[in-house]
């Protein structure tokens, strides 16, 4: 398999790179010239200067958890770094699975994230110059631009079929499951038409939509070689079903974990069968870091092999978000040669064992 990978460093080098990144971001986001009003005001109210006290990633626990509400209640302009003042920005929204959607401003981050991701895709299964189709939530989502950028970056174009996950979520909460199926069939009909009649090699969609497409047509028979998937958690059995039966083991399944606030955490698809399809994701360090924390004492990192809540820290020039507690839990996994930092495995909704959470089931 002809694969080019971006990361070839040791664990120590990765740690050093991350610490350096943390210092750089503290200097950027907490300086009057470059920081945004939100963080500069926060620093004044907090009474301490992160530039002095946060010298490595280990110091990040000095920050409190970034709160959902800040991205819902604050004016978006307050998150514009002074260095970007006057530049129009994109506004991206999260899925809105839990309450009001969060909004994030951005400029080039999504391009960086998806170019970095592109390096990790196999040219055999995601051929350069091949066209893509994106079947999933578009609208105000970063994914809409990101997948198209990924296709363009790899020399192809991207077709789109839209889906409104918030409407699906509402239908599910009202138990109108027949309506969900009808809506899904409406989306599928559009996707299948495009796949049948256009020259498409690669697809981005959600796991359930992928299964739904595969129910209607043989995906590999229609020329698709690679599928990059994200959006909801998947059990190992479901990943196996998608790879072996939906893609018939003839196209590559590439699970990812990510959202508007992070970018993309990637997996190692060719190792999935030997790992019994248990997926481990690695964050796009040093631009974002995932940590598995004790839900009761979030400053404590769980041991390897243990489940804990997923904590995300985003460290880009456009956006600083320390210690955001995701709605997910996962197993802390050991670093991999290819990604020499902690991974997060078998992601599932936080509290999945004790309550029902409506995920983005689309």
């Amino acid at each position, binding site marked *: 398999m002809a694969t080019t990978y971006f990361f070839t460093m040791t664990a120590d080098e990765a740690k050093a790179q991350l610490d350096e990144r943390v210092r750089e971001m503290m200097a950027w986001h907490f300086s009057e010239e470059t920081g945004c009003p939100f963080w500069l005001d926060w620093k004044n109210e907090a009474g301490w200067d992160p530039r002095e006290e946060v010298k490595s990633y280990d110091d990040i626990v000095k920050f409190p958890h970034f709160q959902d509400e800040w991205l819902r209640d604050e004016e978006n302009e307050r998150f514009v770094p002074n260095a970007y003042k006057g530049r129009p920005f994109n506004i991206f929204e999260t899925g809105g699975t839990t309450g009001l959607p969060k909004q994030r401003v951005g400029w080039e981050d999504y391009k960086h994230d998806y170019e970095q991701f592109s390096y990790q895709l196999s040219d055999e299964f995601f051929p350069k110059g091949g066209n893509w189709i994106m079947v999933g939530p578009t609208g105000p989502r970063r994914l809409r631009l990101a997948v198209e950028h990924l296709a363009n970056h790899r020399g192809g174009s991207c077709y789109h079929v839209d889906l409104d996950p918030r409407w699906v979520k509402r239908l599910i909460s009202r138990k109108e*499951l*027949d309506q969900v*199926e009808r809506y899904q069939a409406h989306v599928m009909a559009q996707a299948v038409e495009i796949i049948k009649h256009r020259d498409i090699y690669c697809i981005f969609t959600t796991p*359930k939509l992928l*299964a*739904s497409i*595969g*129910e209607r047509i043989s995906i590999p028979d229609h020329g698709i070689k690679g599928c990059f998937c994200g959006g909801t958690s998947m*059990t*190992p*059995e*479901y990943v*196996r*079903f998608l790879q072996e*039966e*939906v893609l018939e083991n003839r196209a590559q399944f590439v699970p990812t974990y990510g959202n508007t606030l992070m970018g993309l955490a990637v997996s190692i698809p060719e190792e999935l069968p030997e790992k*019994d*399809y248990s997926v481990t994701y690695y964050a796009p360090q040093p631009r974002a870091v995932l940590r598995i924390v004790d839900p009761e004492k979030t400053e404590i990192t769980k041991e390897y092999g243990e489940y804990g809540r997923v904590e995300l820290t985003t460290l880009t020039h456009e956006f600083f978000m320390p210690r955001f507690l995701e709605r997910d839990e996962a197993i802390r996994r050991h670093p991999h040669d290819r990604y020499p930092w902690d991974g997060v495995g078998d992601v599932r909704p936080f509290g999945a064992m004790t309550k029902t959470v409506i995920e983005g089931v689309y």
Partner: protein
Amino acid sequence: MTAPHIPILRQGKVYKSLDVQTVNQLGTDEPAAEISFACADMIKYDLNKMGQAREALKKFSCKELVDITKKAGEIFLNDDLPIGTDGMMQSPEDYVMSLAATSGLPHSLIRMNMKRLGGIFDQIDLIFRGLTRGLDWDVLDKGYGEQGGAPVSFSATTNELAVILPSNSPAVNALWIPSIAMKVPVLLKPGREEPWTPWRVIQAFIKAGCPAEAFSLYPTQHDGSGAIIRRGGRVMLFGDDSTVKQYENDERIEVHGTGYSKFLIGEDEIENWEKYIDTIVESVSANSGRSCICTSTIVVPKYGDEIAEAVAKRVAEIKPLAQDDPEAKLSGFANPKFAEWINAAVEEGLSSGGAVDVTAQYREGERFQEREGMNYLQPTIIRVDGFDQDLAVREFLFPFASVVECPQAEMLEKIGPSLVVTAVTKDIDWINKLFDCPHIDRLNVGNVPTNRIKWDQPHEGNLFEFLYTRRSFQIAEIA
């Protein structure tokens, strides 16, 4: 016997899932079985291919499938059969032990249910003829023929009979067994604590010569059940009144709900009430009261107090015993919370007034009992003032019945929907009214326990009419 792994069966092919759950022996941390769970989308994919399973079954004539079914009954009752994925074999006694370990059923009740299932296999020809009103088997083989001198043709409404099975009684598997002789494959979702019976029945069929493709078994979660219900061509499921209501206008779905079966004594026979106590006791307590055909309301024109006392005294003798005690007739609850919820519902009904627990004076201890890590509810007879009382028409998963007095002339207005009614009477006028009553699904006239049913007659719907529809046809004479 070590805990076997119960796999998914996809048209007879064994599939071991990565999503595995362990079912422990009740009241212990010892595993009884590992169960492979199927994801909903896999079931959807497989449902699309069920036509292949039906083709495999159609290669056999109905006569051959009837013979196979009869042979499978013998095998089910007597043979060692494969269990799990590792070449293990299960004897009939192993089956009893495994089911007892996860369901809480006493061994004696399991053996009784085994015999009952054996009877279904054995009487398949009678059942077939009963449900088809004497249709010649050849008609289904050929697609058309004659019945009673009239031309008939039947076409299958579905490629599969999907059944969402409960965990509380192995006898419910009787409902799908005839489907095989009718050339319709089955797709079964077993209850979490009761994969044993459907698995063993399937293995018996396969050993008897039935094509394995005819059997699909999907242990699965709620979303998998939902996929089966939404996508299955014909679906049987079990549920309460709200489930029945939810699907009442969906011809694909047959809900086996609460039975609210009743035992009525007419005014002409009420002076002889003592003669009928044995029958009432059996009707209330058979199969530990866990059937929709068990009596849950006893309706009499007078002597309500005396009848309640007499029945209470008898059912109070049914006590929680060790599962392997040959005298054990009371089932424990696999989910201990169920016993607590049911007991609370009975107590709530009693506290609303107009109801007395007559069994309280005869039984040992409280209704709710714990024994060897298992929860039980002791049999309960409630004397109620009238049909308006909360407990007058209720059905619970243990031997429970109310006794209500009501003039004979008002009984049929008041009883409401009843799966089985036994009416003890010789009054021809009233018998005619009973036959005319739309609320009654099955009617026994005379001293017949409500739990004794004949399978050659429809039970909550006619399986043949569920699986087949009559088609109009003409065939021109060949020139």
